[in-house]
């Protein structure tokens, strides 16, 4: 039997190659993600190991009393250094320190203290050296690259007093590429004494120590526990610290690998569909051969095993190629992640473990075998007499099982929609899993229903080409619809990719549209000046300077703060996030939509409240309520005022829970001396360029002032959205490529199957061009079916998602990106034309007489 199988494989090699490619790509993705994950892990471990390198004991403040500092005090460090068991000790500290960029604007950065002892340092210099003097600074290479700074240049940090301090950049250093490389902010390195100038309170996040010769980690810990008398401190061994780091790392594990694995799964499912289709067609075409085998005495089991053995062999070969490809994929991903960070690319690692190899082979073989089981079962049902029959009729019968299909599809779709709604409601990491599962369920429903959909969808889609292109297109539509199962499996592969892309697209676009609309609607200011640093307010003088500009019509400052309305005591429900606005701002620069009451201007002690907050606190227009300010700093109660509700407005995310006039606000929060933001409306006739220049002139003296324009905010959002979509596209692209292989594959096999039919058509007067056109149209129809259904599903799922993401505060604007949808459809058509090129060429090339001779 083995000889027969091998001979069969050789004979069908060409046909199997295309399908093997599909599996190989899927496996490559799985392997790639695994290798990438392992490489990032190894990098991260290296990075973590640096933190724990040479550390024999570590001191932290674990149990600080309320009001107590969570930092290890300099006295403790000094005491530790004095201990005879200690060879060296260092305090590690970091501060958020604003960094002035090239334009003199503050951007948030993290300054880290350089350990004095060589053994305890964690940064590896790349260029130059690490700081040795109080005016020297080193910068993470990524930061230097993004800021366009080179060694020798000046770097300015902003002190707590808002005064700039200048340092000389003496070197760059590298951090290991870890998962956090994607989102960590700019980082610089200073000597501890230089960093101290930026700290409100002295102290260290941790103190690490190296034991003197002959002192064990446990002995050191005991000794230090006696020395460190600061309340709340904990002393652990270096070994325990290492373990702790690894544990923390493990718990935040895998975001990227996790998501990539999800996409690998999609690619594999698509590949499985392609394989399934290939085997189905091959079995259909080999009906006679299989029947002949049965005639000469092969039993059902042997036929079944023969088909499966073929699948195993194919899966193995494909998996091996996929494994090799996967290592390449991982290297590429690492390079692009490195490029994303803007740093010099760290050494690419490709740790291939036995698990990775086994997974690749296992997945490749398993998926292939699973995909081949159904066709193999079908093969066993080929009766020996089929050998005597003429042309095998491979059109599948679907009507028989339609009832079951509809029922199963309905169940799956309901479960999927439920999961999608749930996914939108949940507010943590499981959300993405639940959403992914929901999408998969909906896709399963569509795949189940697929064969029933092909007929009607094909009739609708086929009508237009038939009208435009005549007979060849009509024949193509008939061919696309003649074997619903085959067509369904082919288009399903594409449908899956399109669904995922269009769903992400719809949700992302809707989110952007929602935010855009809010910006336009409620904050129609031309510019909004805010502080680039979370905890520093804008100086009040800035508002006056802006208002004094000729180019500016209004400069309206705002403040925000917490109040508690009476009767709600310590209950969180009684808290209102209050926004204070100046005179004449409401209705011009702040435009909430009024639900009840009048919202013209807010007089003394008048309050406008959002619908949701009104419901929460039970306030309505006309009610007067005693309110008390809650200060963020002292946690104590501030001044009290009786506030009267004059209006209730529709919820809007930018406006907080309630609005009051600026005087009322100051009465409640007199401690606030600066402004949270200043909204600027340009005078009529002032060009955006002139207006911006004028505003910039005034804000130049205030480094923390950041100018946002609505247009820029929107553009920035758009850019982020495009990045996200590009990422998703790149990942789903693979599934789409596999799906297109599937189209080529199906078409090639169909062309072989219909050799005589094509010959007949040619004899009857179909030109070569028309024959090619026929196949192109067939491919386009299959691709369109897949993408149209995918779009419908994707947009549908997107709608469910936006609906469930909508809350009382934000009603998501469901938005379909028509342009991109159009591009997607166009792309599918072009890709289909390309994927039909080979089979079409082949069909058109064969001579009529020769084709007629094939049985």
């Amino acid at each position, binding site marked *: 039997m083995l000889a027969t199988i091998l001979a069969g494989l050789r004979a069908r090699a060409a046909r199997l190659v295309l399908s093997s490619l599909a599996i190989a790509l899927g496996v490559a993705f799985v392997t790639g993600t695994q290798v990438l994950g392992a490489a990032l892990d190894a990098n991260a471990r290296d990075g973590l190991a640096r933190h724990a390198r040479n550390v024999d004991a570590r001191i932290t403040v674990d149990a600080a009393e309320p009001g107590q500092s969570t930092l290890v005090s300099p006295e403790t460090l000094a005491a530790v250094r004095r201990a005879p068991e200690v060879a060296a000790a260092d305090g590690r500290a970091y501060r958020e320190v604003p960094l002035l960029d090239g334009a003199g604007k503050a951007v948030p950065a993290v300054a880290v203290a350089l350990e004095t002892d060589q053994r305890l340092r964690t940064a590896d210099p790349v260029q130059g050296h690490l700081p040795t003097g109080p005016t020297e600074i080193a910068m993470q290479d990524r930061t230097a690259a993004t800021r366009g700074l080179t060694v020798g240049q000046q770097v300015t940090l902003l002190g707590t007093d808002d005064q700039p301090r200048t340092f000389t950049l003496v070197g760059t250093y590298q951090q290991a590429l870890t998962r956090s490389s994607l989102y960590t902010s700019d980082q610089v390195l200073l000597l501890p004494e230089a960093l101290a100038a930026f700290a409100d309170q002295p102290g260290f996040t941790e103190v690490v120590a190296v034991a003197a010769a002959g002192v064990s980690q446990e002995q050191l810990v005991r000794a230090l526990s006696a020395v460190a008398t600061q309340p709340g401190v904990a002393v652990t061994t270096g070994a325990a610290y290492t373990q702790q780091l690894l544990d923390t790392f493990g718990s935040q594990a895998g975001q990227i690998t996790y998501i990539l694995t999800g996409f690998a799964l999609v690619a594999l499912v698509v590949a499985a569909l392609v394989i399934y289709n290939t085997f189905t067609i091959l079995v259909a075409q080999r009906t006679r051969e299989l029947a002949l085998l049965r005639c000469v005495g092969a039993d059902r089991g042997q036929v079944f095993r023969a088909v499966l053995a073929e699948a195993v062999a194919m899966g193995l070969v494909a998996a091996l190629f996929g494994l090799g490809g996967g290592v390449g994929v991982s290297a590429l991903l690492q390079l692009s992640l490195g490029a994303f960070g803007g740093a010099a690319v760290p050494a690419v690692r490709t740790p291939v473990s036995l698990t990775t190899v086994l997974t690749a082979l296992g997945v490749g073989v398993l998926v292939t075998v699973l995909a081949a089981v159904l066709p193999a079962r079908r093969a066993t049902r080929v009766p020996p007499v089929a050998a005597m029959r*003429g*042309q095998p*009729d491979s*059109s599948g019968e679907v009507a028989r099982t339609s009832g079951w299909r509809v029922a199963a599809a309905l169940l799956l779709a309901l479960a999927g929609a439920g999961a999608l709604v749930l996914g939108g409601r949940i507010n943590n990491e499981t959300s993405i899993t639940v959403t992914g599962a929901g999408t998969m369920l909906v896709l399963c429903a569509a795949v189940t229903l697929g064969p029933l959909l092909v007929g009607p969808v094909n009739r609708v889609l086929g009508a237009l080409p038939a009208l435009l292109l*005549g*007979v060849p297109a009509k*024949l193509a539509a*008939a*061919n696309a*619809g*003649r074997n619903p199962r085959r067509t369904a499996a082919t288009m399903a592969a594409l449908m899956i990719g399109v669904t995922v892309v269009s769903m992400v697209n719809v949700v992302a676009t809707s989110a952007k549209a929602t935010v855009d609309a809010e910006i336009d609607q409620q904050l129609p200011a031309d510019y909004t000046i805010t502080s680039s640093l979370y905890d520093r307010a804008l100086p009040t003088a800035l508002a006056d300077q802006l208002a004094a500009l000729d180019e500016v019509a209004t400069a309206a400052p705002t403040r925000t703060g917490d109040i508690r309305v009476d009767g709600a005591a310590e209950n969180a429900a009684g808290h209102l996030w209050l926004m204070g606005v100046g005179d004449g701002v409401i209705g011009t620069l702040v435009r909430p939509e009024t639900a009840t009451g009048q919202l013209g201007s807010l007089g003394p002690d008048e309050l406008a409240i959002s619908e949701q907050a009104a419901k929460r606190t039970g306030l309505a227009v006309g009610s007067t309520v005693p309110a008390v300010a809650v200060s963020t700093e002292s946690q104590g109660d501030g001044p009290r005022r009786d506030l009267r509700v004059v209006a209730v407005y529709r919820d809007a995310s930018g406006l907080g829970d309630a609005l009051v006039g600026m005087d009322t606000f100051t009465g409640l929060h007199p401690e606030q001396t600066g402004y949270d933001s200043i909204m600027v409306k340009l005078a009529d006739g002032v060009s955006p360029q002139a207006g911006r220049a004028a505003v910039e002139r005034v804000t130049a003296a205030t480094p923390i002032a950041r100018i946002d324009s609505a247009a820029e905010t929107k553009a920035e959002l758009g850019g982020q959205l495009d990045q996200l979509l590009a990422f998703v596209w790149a990942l789903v692209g693979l599934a789409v490529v596999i799906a297109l292989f599937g189209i080529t594959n199906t078409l090639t096999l169909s062309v072989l199957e219909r050799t*005589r*039919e094509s010959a*007949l*058509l*040619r*004899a*009857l*007067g*179909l*030109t*070569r061009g*028309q024959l090619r056109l026929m196949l192109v149209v067939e491919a386009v129809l299959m691709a369109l079916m897949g993408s149209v259904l995918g779009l419908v599903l994707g947009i549908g799922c997107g709608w469910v998602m936006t609906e469930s993401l909508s809350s009382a505060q934000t009603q998501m604007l469901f938005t379909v990106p028509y342009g991109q949808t159009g591009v997607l459809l166009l792309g599918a058509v072009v890709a289909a034309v390309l994927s039909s090129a080979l089979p079409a060429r082949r069909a058109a090339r064969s*001579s*009529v*007489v020769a084709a*007629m001779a094939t049985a």
Partner: protein
Amino acid sequence: MSAVVSQLGTRTAVAARDLVKVYGKGDTAVRALAGVSVSFAAGEFTAIMGPSGSGKSTLMHCLAGLDTVDGGSVHIGDTDITHLGDRELTRLRRDRIGFVFQAFNLLPTLTARQNILLGLELAGRKADQAWLDTIVDTLGLRERLDHRPTELSGGQQQRVACARALVARPDVVFADEPTGNLDSRSGAEVLDFLRMSVRRLNQTVIMVTHDPVAASYADRVVLIADGALAGEITQPTADSVLAALAHLGA
């Protein structure tokens, strides 16, 4: 170019001169046609007969422009088709030739009616409704027009193929063993129809067959042996054909 006209003054529908067809190269080369000259008058029903492997199908394929020739020429009406490109040949087949094959004549995706009209549709022509009705009724296909080939018997399928071959009123209909797969009754129906189309409608039909009874429906039988012409019989009967074939050693 003057029309090729036979001595009797009837128009010649198809003519082959010194037709040579070689399959393969070198040692394995097979001379399927070794210089065949034969002509077929318009309005005549001709049967081509000969032993298996004698080159009947090859001759028909060359005459119909389905295959290229290695020597000699083929005329359909006034047109020398031996030098036509694929596009012109295709158009010629579409507009001027009808085909009935032994099997697999119909597209499984189309109904009987669509199959019948396929050639006309490809040519972008309208069917002559009266003519279509005549054909359909004569062949007894009225009830079957909306069936697909899989729902038709072998004889019905062949009749649909005949209808398709004739509906466009081609210059010539080529039939390669049209009754090869049919029982004698169904075969007789198909042959009757072909003969009727020749007698009443002046259609030209060239049919390859193995069956002396089928050949007896024709006006003339052309005998082929080893790729060369081996005689002809006019006004054939089953017996005279059988005798001639026996003489050929078939």
